[in-house]
């Protein structure tokens, strides 16, 4: 079918997001720990929710990635959110609903969700106070 200028532009915009993956993105990078420990603790539903949110909200500049065991198996599922400047925030004991909140407040809003982050006190890792909504 012959395409009009508008149709070409629509294709271009749609495809750009897809191809962006291959050309490097500039926005946030969200990394889910998906080693055996993470998967056993429920990382997979977190990942699925993450992808749903990114897709639903059209966050074309966000990279969804996964990584292996981060070494804190008891705190899994772990999710790292890396901002465009390289700053990293680690979220622990993640669930799909917590993931949605992190996307909303951190990735879109720019403010880390303190309730779910890892705390380090005197060199000791302290589980965060988990506050269910």
């Amino acid at each position, binding site marked *: *079918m*012959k*395409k*009009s*200028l508008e149709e*070409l532009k629509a*294709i*271009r915009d*749609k*495809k*750009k997001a*897809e*191809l962006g*993956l*291959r*050309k*490097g*993105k500039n926005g946030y*990078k969200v*990394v*889910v*720990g*998906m*080693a*055996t420990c993470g*998967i056993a603790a429920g990382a997979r539903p977190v990942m*699925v929710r993450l*992808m*749903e949110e*990114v*897709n639903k909200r059209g966050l074309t500049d966000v*990279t*969804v*990635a*996964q*990584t*292996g*065991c981060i070494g804190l198996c008891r705190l899994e599922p772990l999710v790292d959110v890396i901002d465009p400047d390289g700053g990293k925030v680690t979220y622990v004991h993640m669930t799909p609903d917590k993931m949605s909140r992190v996307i909303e407040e951190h990735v879109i809003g720019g403010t880390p969700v303190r309730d779910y982050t890892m705390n380090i006190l005197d060199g000791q890792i302290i589980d965060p106070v988990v506050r269910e909504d």
Partner: protein
Amino acid sequence: MAYTRSQVLLCGGTGCTSSGSRVLEKEFIKEIKNSGLQDEVEVAVTGCFGLCSLGPVVIIYPEGTFYSMVKPEDVAEIVHEHLVKGRPLARLEYKETKGDKVTESLKELDFYNKQTRVALKNCGIINPEDIEDYIGSDGYTALEKVLLSMQPQDVINEIKASGLRGRGGGGFPTGMKWQFAANASTPDGVKYVCCNADEGDPGAFMDRSVLEGDPHSVIEAMIIAGYAIGASQGYVYVRAEYPIAVKRLQIAIDQARDYGLLGEDILGSGFNFDLDIRLGAGAFVCGEETALMNSIEGKRGEPRPRPPFPANKGLFERPTILNNVETYANITSIINRGSDWFSSMGTEKSKGTKVFALGGKINNTGLLEIPMGTTLREIVFEIGGGIPNGKRFKAAQTGGPSGGCIPAEKLDVPIDYDNLIAIGSMMGSGGLIVMDEDNCMVDVARFFLEFTQDESCGKCPPCRIGTKRMLEILNRICDGKGEEGDIERLEQLALGIKSAALCGLGQTAPNPVLSTIRYFRDEYEAHIKQKKCPAGVCKNLLDYYIDDDMCRGCGICAKKCPVGCISGERKQPHVINPIPCIKCGTCLDSCPFGAVKVAR
């Protein structure tokens, strides 16, 4: 849910296809489905990534992990480890040849870091069989700009200002070529745009890779060229030996027609243009512009005298422009990013970048694109990863059979059109063959001359007879029957052929001989006077013998010798009879004690 979080890119260029990338594609799709990831991981086949010797190459994004020499049985492991668990499989990750450091991402590889990709910008990134991938990479925006906001003369001015010169080898300014064709008058208003994809140099595959990896960039540029000179029909002349390139180009043309980007009233501008493929049967001479046009017309592929030049009387006696694939691949970037941007790269008289096909005695065999003015040393030792097995660099041949060799002392000359001619070689289409100390330069010259002699169309005597005589002399020298005065005879013949041959093939055929004489005259003299081949290549000048002290008399060589010319008692030193010996080297390879020697 259909969100693609990860993409598996498989190289579908000729190199990786022949090392089995299409089997991998099936395996990946199967394994990804088995793991339930089919909705979030996409498998895409792209054009050439450039590191052909490491094929099949697989790249996984967003990490940009580079896997080399992947086998079908590795696929399940990659899927489970990388895509399910998120840990790259170190075992298959490509290690840069410098040191043992495992590179985590493609962006870290020296091979890619030092390149500037303009003509190859989409190669290895987009799926060449999907026009929407191209459109999503700013494809056809240059065409929009040209058709909707520029006059034909504006387009020509922009190309002129960019300083782009023909990438097929001659280096003629592209804008000027377009201007001549635009100015030329024609009785019926018909003009043509042609693309030369008849890449015939041994070891060169730049054009093939562009057509395989990014065919739409050539199509878009040809439509722009048509608009600039006032042509409404184009032809791509591509050799039939490039089946993948032909197939993808045809798919791309069909898709462009379907989207209304080829045909009538393109983008509502009132401009008509269509494109067809013409297959060449593989004659080297058909890469010469006038022979190519004869071939498209259905005539015998022989050159015709110039003038008249194709810009005035080309295809079917109408004004025609003929540009090389790589030249076209630069056009859309020049239109989109401006001539200033383009001319900011390169040297004073050679702007932009050049694609080279790197081959021969080099670690990273493959395809690369560098700004003009890069030195040969950077190409060979940084991007190319140096010479394998710690051997010494001897020379690099550029320009294939029409070019010449560049010796080690010229490694630091910035590469551009004029510098290469000054040192006795030429840019050519971009084949770059690296030779080490084991290459005999006389033999190399003979190889290239044998090629051009064989490919000579026979129309003009200087090329038909002259190259034959030159080859006879070279054969004689390599056989140990060289005579005093042979070098001078070669030089004299070369001069005659260069000045009298009808077309580029003949005029450049003596170049490899002249440049090897210029830089490696001592090797010629060793062949002629001492009857020795210093590199140990020319068989008739070598003698195999067995070192008495090292031979243990095991008899392996005698058993393996195909002509039975080795004899000796068991546990006693063996002897090679030089008369029946065919110098095949089997004994040398089979001796466990290294007792077989070659006298050079």
